[in-house]
Every structure is written in structure tokens, then in C-alpha cells.
């Protein structure tokens, strides 16, 4: 039967399937490119409204600067830097600061050692 085999690279069937898929890809990509664009236009609108919500709330707050928060001053005086307001104290460093990337395993070791000291 091989004498009837077409000599082209594609069979007629393969060519039809291929061109059909190509057309579908172009159309679907086009539709989603458009959809994506529209989605962003709407999304900016709700982002702006949520942002306005936070800025309005800021304006209504009695105190608007972190270093004037009475409970912040209290936690430094009572706990983090006893008797004074002194950020980056030893205790603050232990509880409130961290490390990144390849320094983390050593940090975890240090945490374990710290717990043994406390125990």
C-alpha cells in the first residue's frame, strides 16, 4: 500500500488539525489578552477604593505616629528595654529581629541554645 503514501511532510489530515489548532490558539489568546486588559482596568478601581479607606482611617486616628503610641512606650519600658524606650535592645533583637537565607540554620541553633539557657 505504500505506493499511495503522500510524499509531503504533513498528511492532509495533519495539516487540517494543525491549522485548526493554530487558528483556535490565535482566537483564544486574543480573547484572553482582551479579558486580562479589562480585568486590570476594573482592578485598579477597587484597589484605589480600599487605599482610600485606609487613608481616611489614618486621618481619623487620634495618634498618627508610631513613636507616640502609649502601649509601644509601655512595652519598651516594661519589657523590651526596662526603664527606658530604647529600640533594638538585646531582648528586642532576640524577639523582633530575624535572619535570612543561608543564615537561618545557625539562627535556629541559637534559638535552641537560648531555650536551654532559659530552662
Amino acid at each position: 500500500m505504500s505506493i499511495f503514501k503522500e510524499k509531503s511532510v504533513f498528511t492532509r489530515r495533519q495539516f487540517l488539525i494543525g491549522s485548526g489548532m493554530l487558528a483556535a490558539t490565535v482566537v483564544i489568546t486574543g480573547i484572553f489578552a482582551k479579558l486580562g486588559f479589562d480585568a486590570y482596568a476594573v482592578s485598579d478601581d477597587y484597589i484605589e477604593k480600599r487605599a482610600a479607606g485606609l487613608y481616611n482611617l489614618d486621618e481619623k486616628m487620634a495618634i498618627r505616629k508610631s513613636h507616640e503610641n502609649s502601649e509601644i512606650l509601655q512595652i519598651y519600658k516594661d519589657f523590651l528595654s526596662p526603664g527606658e524606650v530604647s529600640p533594638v535592645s538585646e531582648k528586642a533583637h532576640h524577639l523582633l529581629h530575624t535572619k535570612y537565607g543561608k543564615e537561618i540554620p545557625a539562627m535556629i541553633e541559637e534559638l535552641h541554645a537560648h531555650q536551654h539557657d532559659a530552662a
Partner: protein
Amino acid sequence: MSTATLADTGIIQITKACKACDHCTSVCPTGAVKGLLGQKHSIDYKTCINCGQCLINCPFGAIIDTSSVEQVKQALNDSGKTVIVQEAPAVRVALGEEFGMPVGTNVKGKMHAALRKLGFDKVYDTEFAADLTIMEEGTELIHRVFKLAGVAGYEDRGPLPQFTSCCPAWIKYAEDKYPAILPHLSSAKSPQQMFGAIAKTYAANKQGVNPADMVSVSVMPCTAKKYECDRPEMKASGFQDVDYVITTRELATIIKDAGIDFVNLPDEEADKLIGTSTGAATIFGVTGGVMEAALRTAYEILSGESLNKVEFTAVRGMQPVREATVEIPIKDLGINLPVNVCIVTGTKYVDKVIEDVLAGRSKYHFIEVMNCPGGCINGGGQPIRHEMY
């Protein structure tokens, strides 16, 4: 010793409902979504930063995040546990949307009331820890500036510019792709993790609670916060500092399941001790907010003067990369320092900023990076805007 955690497996999954439309691929900041148009997609957890932008932008609701809702409900029903909760700033201007209220409505008071009705023993506020972050991160920045100016005693401080470290998606991106930039990141933990470490030490002690019996829950606009709380080093209190993170969407579901009439709740305050906050903390939820909050405090501390106008509108806006210069008189050094700041919202825009720093070309002193476009208000844990599709 190593056990599988969320940090290894990731937070976001693409379900069988995926229609292979490729929209998620276009919003993913790191190219972590695999699969060509027409093939069901999957996520490469090595590069995924857990931000959930694919999830909130999926037109078919085919992308989900891991959930701790059942564990939180169990803890609330366990009389032997003291369950405390913190809520991020961005939650309070989005939660109302799940109950039909207009976008951007401030439901801070109703949110506190609903959490109390759900049975949380103490309803605190992440905003307290945002103020604490400014104290620590702001002081760290001042010390790095002193080092640059050659002031004695600050030689061991980190380099400038300093990058913010509140956003766990940005942190993972920096760790994965730019290890050389890590010394530039502020060593300050995020507000969520500062809160967790304080809750099981300072607050447990003041409340007279054994920290082993305390369950610390966090309500976040963010899916990456679920990953952050599970990072193995986040155990400064001797326990996991934050036990469970639920999203704004999940809190809404829990409130609905409990049959609470959210819209008609009275406004309530957060509990005292670690629940009081300022406007500076509130704006953490929007791009440029951490920068503005830090400038308010750094300006007053360095200059010794009181600001007449607390708004630094130059750092506000929605453009992905913004810059500003703020002249700060430094009393101790007797100089006026023009502080150059940069704000990036959208991790796909941060590469150039980082490469300039690594090449020594950057003129900035302080750089804020938030992964989600617009900041946490548009985080992967926020209500999904179904009308978009």
C-alpha cells in the same frame, strides 16, 4: 529533624477546575506557573512566592490555598486554650465586601466585635505590631545612616540602602533569586511575626497565661503569611509564635457559618495591652504606607522637631516604582540629609532596583517593596472581585 512544612510544599494549588486559560501566568510575578496555553497548569514551588495573585485573578476559581479554618474552630471550642487574634490593617477595609458593603468601607469596629462573638479570648490588633516595626526598623535605618556618616559605635551595622522586610513574598523572592541583596534587608520581622513573639512572652505573662496553652491566630489579607508563620525560625517565644493564619475571605466564611449578622454589629475597640495603634500603622496596608510611617517617626526623632503635617504625599500613589527625596535635619550631626526613598509595588518591577544596588549605582537610602500591586489591600487573601469576570 526536618519535617515537611508549608515552607516546602507551598500554599497555593491549582485544582482540576483549571481551564488552562493562561491568565494566572500573566499575573504571576515570578513565572512559577507551569503549563502552556491549553495545558492544565501547575505550580513550581521552588519559585512560587505564595502571594496568591494567581488565586484572586483566576476567572474560574480553580486556584486554592491551604486552610487552617478547622484548626482555628477547634481551638475556639477547646476550653483549655486561650485563643488570641490579630488582624492586619488591610483586612478592615475589605472584609465588608464579603457582606455586601461598598468597597473600601472601614469595618474595623465590626471586625473586632465579630471576633469577640466568635469566642476569641483577646482581640488584639496587628497594627500595634506595625508601630513596633517602625520603632525597630526605623531605628535600624537611623543606625545605618550613622554608619555611613562615620559616627563611632555603628561600624557593625548593615549597608544602605535598607529594604523593608514586612512582605513574606518579597522576602522569599530575595532569598530565592538575589541572595547577595539579603544584607540590605531590614532584620526587623514583619508585624505579624513581631506580634506572635510578643504575644507568647509579654502578653502571656501579663495575662497570666501559660504560653503553651495559648493559640495565636492571625487574620491576614495574604496567603504568603501562612507560609511565613510556618518558617522554622519563627519560634522566638520558645513556641511557634503564630499558630494559624486565616485570610480575610476565610474570616468572612467563619463569621457567616456562625450566623453572625455582621453588618448590624456595633463598633468595638481592640483589647488593651497590645491592641492600641496609630494612623501610621493603619497605612501599612497600602503601597508606600510603611515608608510614610517610617518617615513620620524618623523625621521627628532625627530632627528633634514635631511635624506640622504628618502626610508625606510624595510617597503615595499606585505606580509600580516611585521615588521621592525628603530633606531631614539631623540634630546630632548638625547636617541636613536629603533622604532618597523608593517604593516598589509588584515584585516583577524590583529586579532593576536590586541590580542597581548590587552594582553600586543606587542613590536610595530606603526602599519599600510589597509584592502585590497596590500593597496588602490587593493581597492574595482578600475578597475576590467576581464582577471582574
